[in-house]
């Protein structure tokens, strides 16, 4: 089968953990409207009810025994997210999209380690999710700013992803897939992992990176970009932002001066990435690169 999208496609069967909450319920409706294949929902204590026609179960195990699933999107409150993700992992769900924000870093680190043990993948936390325009959306992004095409986007920011995808869509340039990886100190999936998937995806002709200050995702991604055959453009937010209070010596010892917007821009440019100074400049760079 020809892979038409990274990570997910229109056949991906999705469960929603935390489906009965305010946000979970509204976003389930919006995903169903988009055509996403949501097969079941889970909220402990609410088993037997339905949300927008989707059957709700008390446990993930019960849900997947009736409705086999490939992915879970989580709207579970932060204090319960560690439990909920391990529950999904134990039910052999291989893709976890964690929308929840304010998750303790130690919990995210724990979740990441558990997914590594079993070969599963967590996207996020604090992510808008994944959208394959025209096929499926496992996330909270407003659908109207995206259109089908062949630009892959990786973003650490949710709302900035919407702005940049929206700019491209207005210019008639569609997207193969857009993935928000989140910008928490620790994330489930790195920028480099998604770059690798886009490089292998025959539907994607070019990758746009939306980065921001903090961490070393962009710097590490640059190492992989050197080996890529597809063109990459990038926008990095936070040139004016102050570096903030230093996180002690251990952080500085590990970071060694990386993590600023300028460091990211320099490293990416040296790896052959075309840098947009403003979000709207991404359009021009993408147009140029698609012709070359």
């Amino acid at each position, binding site marked *: 089968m020809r892979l038409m999208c990274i990570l997910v496609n229109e056949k991906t069967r999705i469960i929603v953990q935390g489906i009965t909450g305010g946000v979970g319920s509204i976003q389930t409706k919006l995903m169903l409207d988009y055509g996403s294949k949501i097969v079941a929902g889970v909220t402990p204590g609410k088993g037997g009810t339905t949300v927008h026609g989707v059957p709700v179960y008390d446990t993930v195990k019960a849900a997947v025994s009736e409705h086999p699933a490939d992915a879970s999107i989580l709207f579970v409150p*932060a*204090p319960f997210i560690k439990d909920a993700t391990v529950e999904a992992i134990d039910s052999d769900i291989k893709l976890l999209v964690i929308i929840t924000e*304010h998750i303790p870093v130690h919990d995210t680190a724990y979740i990441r380690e558990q997914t590594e043990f079993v070969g599963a993948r967590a996207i996020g936390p604090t992510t808008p999710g994944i959208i394959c325009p025209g096929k499926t959306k496992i996330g909270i992004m407003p659908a109207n700013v995206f259109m089908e095409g062949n630009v892959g986007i990786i973003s650490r920011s949710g709302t900035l992803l919407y702005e940049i995808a929206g700019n491209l869509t207005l210019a008639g340039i569609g997207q193969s897939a857009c993935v928000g990886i989140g910008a928490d100190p620790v994330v489930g999936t790195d920028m480099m992992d998604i770059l690798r998937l886009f490089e292998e995806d025959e539907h994607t002709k070019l990758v746009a990176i939306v980065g921001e200050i903090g961490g070393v995702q962009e710097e590490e991604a640059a190492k992989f970009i050197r080996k890529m055959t597809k063109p990459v453009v990038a926008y990095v*937010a*936070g*040139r004016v932002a102050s570096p903030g209070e230093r996180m002690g010596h*251990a952080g500085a010892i590990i970071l060694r001066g990386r993590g600023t917007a300028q460091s990211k821009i320099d490293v990416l440019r040296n790896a052959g990435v075309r840098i947009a100074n403003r*979000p709207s400049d991404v359009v021009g760079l993408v147009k140029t690169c698609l012709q070359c």
Partner: protein
Amino acid sequence: MRLFEYEAKEIFRRFGILVPNGAIAGSPDEVDSAVRKVGLPVAIKAQVLVGGRGKAGGIKFADSLEEAVEKAKELMSEKIMGHRVRRILIEEKLDIRHEYYLGVTIDQLSGKPVVVFSKEGGVDVETVTEERPEALISKHVSLSRGLFQFEARDICQQLGLDGAFLLKVSSILHRLYSVFDQYDAMIAEINPLVETNEDKIYAVDAMLEVDDNSLFRHSDIKLDLSRRVEDEIKREATKRRLSYVKLKGDIGVIGSGAGLTMTTIDLIKDFGGEPANFLETGGAITEQLMERAVELMLRDKRLRALLINLYGGINPMPAAAKGIVRAYERLRPKIPILVKLVGNQQEEAWSRLESAGIPVVKEIQTEVAVKKLMSTLGR
């Protein structure tokens, strides 16, 4: 949230890490009894939440009671790197033979805890990384497995420690990891870890930063923002989980999502303006939260204009618009306000704002909003 040195030391002490004998003074009057309790000579340490305190003059020493009182008074009347000194830690002065460094933090890239141990500690520990990498070792730890005692011993042995000394240091390292683990620390650090001429090992400084998002499970840690956050607007913002950074300019910024808010700031600067702040709402906007955010911004007397840049993915735009309108009608600001708002239910939000007389930018490009604001300001 970073703890004060004396708070971190209290936790370290409970975990069996030896710290110098000390007492807290909240005013110069309390210095006398603190010094008597500790015994001369003493170290006098400003309790401020900044790095580089020693170099900034925040640590003094005294051999007599009079000298201690005088130096404590000096410290309490000063600001250390912009921070008022509200409390002073009086500690016994140790007879130092050597300074080491121990730290545990999270390596953001691998998502694993990393233990760092340097044979050369003190104020210049970061230069050791560059100049004498052989004096330093770092090791990743599995979070679900934890750090075993033997792993702590291995780390110490790799740096050439042996015998009773190896056992002592590795046990402190192991305990520090326990603090890191049990307190959801972003960083737990001892710098310097001091070996005295009496062969004892003390944590002479202590740094513990607890993840704000984990405070729901650490009821023993008192948030007490009034002591921790100097700036009033930042304090109020933090209470409501709004993330706020004060900048030097005069254009206020509220945005949904950190990336979009930073971009707004970058563009303001790009078009010749100076942003006054970074204020980000996160993904849990309600009418009340938005009203409060606008109200907080308008307290800032430096502002000449306010730009609000919102996106409706998870955030309900009609509620955001209602909140902005409520604050606008209640406070009747004299400075121009411009709202750029796109996303789910944008039409309803636009009409609410426009009926209240608040100008709205409907284009998706933040550039359009920033340009419009700058021309309103005649810049």
